[in-house]
């Protein structure tokens, strides 16, 4: 009989980037690259596992922003244009490398991958990848977590509790619409937890969420079983803590897998390497070089000289690393289980986009890991947190500590010199939204003032889009800063425009239509309703 559980959590998220006003928008490539390199390979892995009758349980998030983009027709069609371009490039590469055996096989590999990606995207799932993940959830293999509406960073947003509450509740309702069921678990963006956040989750019917290791370890009172068993917050929602040992194994410099010399090098892309005129049609239309996704080299070592990638070696390594990861989990569980009166659970959360996009062999590694766990041992079993809570409904009660999974473990990544200026605007906008909600609540459902309803909803959408944790994160990391900067300013200004207009009693109809068509996230939801409800609740309290 198995002695403990392993819970793999893949957090799939991208910020809402959609620019109908421009034909080619560089940042939209984030989505296209993630589709080709992460989401489709994961779907292919899951499909093959189901086909082979391998039992597995994976916990995944698919944030509302990502799900909205995957369901957006404009972006779907633009992805098809994108993948067609890649297929064309790969086809050219197959011919060009005809006399170079080192690269010819790689060109063929990419060609095959791109053609398959298109087949999965268009042929199999009719452009709707959300349906693919929903299918695996409905089959019982994948458990999809809800998340905040736009990946709002709750520890700082909760200065205005309404903002945090709306982020949570819109996220949960969007989940219901998208997946046709109530969510059980919740992914707190950046694992950002602060006591009190769990109350909103409880109100939304959520049963569990995740925090970083020190969120559990530093909980008050000190938990008996560290991160190996969940805690109930006083609200009754369970908090599962991330395991540092398994995280280290994937990401540490010494033991970490993705840095292996046989794995594919991310930073050498033919978009930068090949002769300019040849590659020009496949880089940015303005002419600066970008990543195409075709990368022919392996990490080789800590050197600038890169050797050609050898897929067989990489596959061998991925299998080896999956075996090593499993072995270590077995030992860890055997060790910890001895000290516990229940089976320990190891929580290993990762950004989904790290698998495939960043670590090219990642999806393959997951595939090997799942198969090995299913057939090669009896100590560890894959499970989701809801499986665990079904088995153990009595858990220790404690208050997890404020924490995030960012550098140093607190709010520093999202609150430092480069990005602290945004909170002044976010908080004021949040209060103003509440003010609008109070003043115009009677416009929402009497049908008399449709314009006011639309304006109110759009104000809420602009506020939500400005709150994404991705913008301060990008400002901190220092690349693409200009874009993140613009996005925050844009949404704050669009919000303020509506706010001023409504207080003055008039809105430009054309302007509103244009803004609605651009920032069309949650266009089928009455986002303002959540602020009105919160406002009413506050009035009662």
């Amino acid at each position, binding site marked *: 009989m198995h002695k403990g559980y392993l819970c793999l959590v893949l957090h799939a998220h991208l910020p809402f980037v959609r620019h109908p006003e421009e034909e080619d928008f560089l940042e939209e490539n*984030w989505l296209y690259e993630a589709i080709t390199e992460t989401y489709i390979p994961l779907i292919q892995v899951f499909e093959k596992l189901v086909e082979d009758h391998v039992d597995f349980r994976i916990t995944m998030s698919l944030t509302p922003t990502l799900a909205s983009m995957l369901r957006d027709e404009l972006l779907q069609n633009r992805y098809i244009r994108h993948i067609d371009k890649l297929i064309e490039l790969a086809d050219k590469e197959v*011919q060009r*490398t005809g*006399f170079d055996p080192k690269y010819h096989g790689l060109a063929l590999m990419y060609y095959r991958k791109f053609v398959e990606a298109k087949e999965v995207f268009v042929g199999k799932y009719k452009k709707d990848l959300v349906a693919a993940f929903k299918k695996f959830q409905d089959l019982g293999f994948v458990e999809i977590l809800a998340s905040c509406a736009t990946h709002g960073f709750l520890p700082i947003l909760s200065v205005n509790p309404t903002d945090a509450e709306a982020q949570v509740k819109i996220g949960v309702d969007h989940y219901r619409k998208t997946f046709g069921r109530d969510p059980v678990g919740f992914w707190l963006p950046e694992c950002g937890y602060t*006591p*009190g956040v769990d*109350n909103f989750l409880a109100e939304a019917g959520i049963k569990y969420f995740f925090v970083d290791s020190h969120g559990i370890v530093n*909980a008050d009172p000190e938990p*008996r079983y560290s991160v190996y068993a969940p805690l109930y917050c*006083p609200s*009754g929602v369970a908090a599962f803590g*991330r*395991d*540092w040992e398994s995280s280290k194994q994937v*990401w540490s*410099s010494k033991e970490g897998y*993705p*840095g292996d010399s046989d794995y594919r090098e991310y930073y050498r892309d033919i978009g930068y390497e*090949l*002769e300019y005129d040849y590659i020009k049609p496949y880089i940015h239309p303005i002419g600066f070089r970008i990543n195409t996704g075709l990368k022919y080299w392996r990490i080789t070592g800590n*050197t600038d000289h890169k050797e050609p990638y050898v897929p067989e070696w990489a596959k061998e390594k991925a299998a080896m690393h999956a075996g090593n990861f499993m072995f270590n989990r077995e030992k860890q569980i055997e060790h910890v289980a001895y*000290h516990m*009166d229940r089976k320990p659970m190891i929580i290993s959360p990762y950004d989904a*986009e*790290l698998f495939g996009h960043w670590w090219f062999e990642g999806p393959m590694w997951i595939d090997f890991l799942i198969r090995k766990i299913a057939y090669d041992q009896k100590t560890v079993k894959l499970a989701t947190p809801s499986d665990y809570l079904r088995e153990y409904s*009595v*858990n*220790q009660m*404690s208050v997890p500590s404020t924490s*995030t*999974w*960012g*550098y*140093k*473990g607190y*709010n520093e990544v999202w*609150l430092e010199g480069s990005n*602290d200026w945004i909170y*002044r605007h976010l908080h004021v906008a949040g209060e103003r939204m509440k003010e609008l909600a*109070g*003043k115009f*609540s009677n*416009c929402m459902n009497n049908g008399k003032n449709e*314009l*006011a309803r639309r304006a109110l909803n759009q104000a809420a959408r602009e506020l939500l889009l400005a709150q994404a944790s991705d913008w301060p*994160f990008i400002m901190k*990391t*220092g*690349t*693409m800063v200009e874009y993140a900067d613009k996005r925050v*300013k*844009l949404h704050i200004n669009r919000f303020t*425009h509506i706010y001023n207009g409504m207080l003055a*009693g008039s809105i430009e*109809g*054309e*302007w509103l239509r*244009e803004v609605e068509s651009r920032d069309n996230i949650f266009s089928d939801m009455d986002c303002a309703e959540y602020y*009105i409800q919160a406002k*009413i609740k506050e009035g009662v309290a």
Partner: protein
Amino acid sequence: MPGKKIKLKKRKPIERVYRDGREATVRTVKRRIKYKQPVVLRPAATVQEPSCVIQERKGAFRPAAINEYELPSYNTTTRITLIAKDPFWIYAYWEIAESSIEDVKRKLGGNLDGARFVVRMYDVTYKDFNGFNANHWFDIEVGRYSNNWYISLWNDNASYLGEIGIVHHSGRFFPMARSNFVHTPRSGTSSRFEEIWMDLTQEAGSEQATPMKTEGAACFERSRGVQYDAAGRFSYSAVSKRRKIYLTEADLRAYYSRLSPLLRDAMFSRISRKKLYRYLYSNMSGKEWHDLLYFKRLHNVKFGRKIMIGASEFAYLGGSENLQGGASEFVQPDKKRKFFFEIGAELIVYGRTEPDAEVKLGDKKIDLKPDGTFSMRFALPDAKIPLPFTATSHDKVETRKISTTVERKTE
């Protein structure tokens, strides 16, 4: 206004009764006084104002109004907000309206000479702050024109509240706005390790607390690891050293009132209907202490380190060594390379024939352009590459062969 005195109410005893009929004890719990923020009151949500009809302005809008990047300013209201950055730092930002300064000026007889703008920080940890009972306070002189400050603190796990105001040279303080409460995170493990366990087996809502069922003869021996009952489950009630007690809401209130004031009310609102019980360690064995210490040792792992990923790229890893959340890999800085020099070679072969002829390289057919020309581009590695071309006329009568060899040698 902050200067106003709030009366402290008398302590009121709250009775605590154990549900399983054990002795009743009486303890006192201090009543909390709701502190009201000194902010302008806003109309209640239910008030319906006639002004809520929004007119549509027809006609073209200013295109610039869609993409506007000039941020609004809010300097008509004086306000201050605190955000905890980590256990030892708080970030404060504020706005000061001219009118607030004028107010203070009036109170001082129109003279602000020698007055200093300060942020006064109150440590209100475990306090029901009424304006006068802070554990301690300190001032940070910030000047008239700054609008934010990172404030360093001595200890973690503390509650703070700040006021932006003016200190007269006489030492009198004139606050202009008061901030939200903020509670800094704990930087280490909690010193409390008493345990409360929550049972969510049954639907919340049933008031009757029922003990956990156990079947068969179960025994519990820590020295031999884990024991399960006949049904294969670990048995709780068999733990002889622990007693199961059902807690009342008052118990929990008392218990959690030791937490941050920010949390208390929010927490109590929903726990009363949950079934809770506590294990008391009346006689903890050495082995159990050992177990606790074992987990304590695990806690001593240092979080946050800088590690290397990929060939030469640093990623800052957080509390538990992942990239910092989000779409991290998309925003990695471009790779900075040192001086380098590389050479690649490509080969372009082109030719022409009748547009309807068939051209082959080896045995692979080549597509001709409509005018009968063709052009091929190859990567040229260090090798000797033979290129045998054959052209056959449309009627298959004539055939021409051209073989050429290219060699690349890098030294």
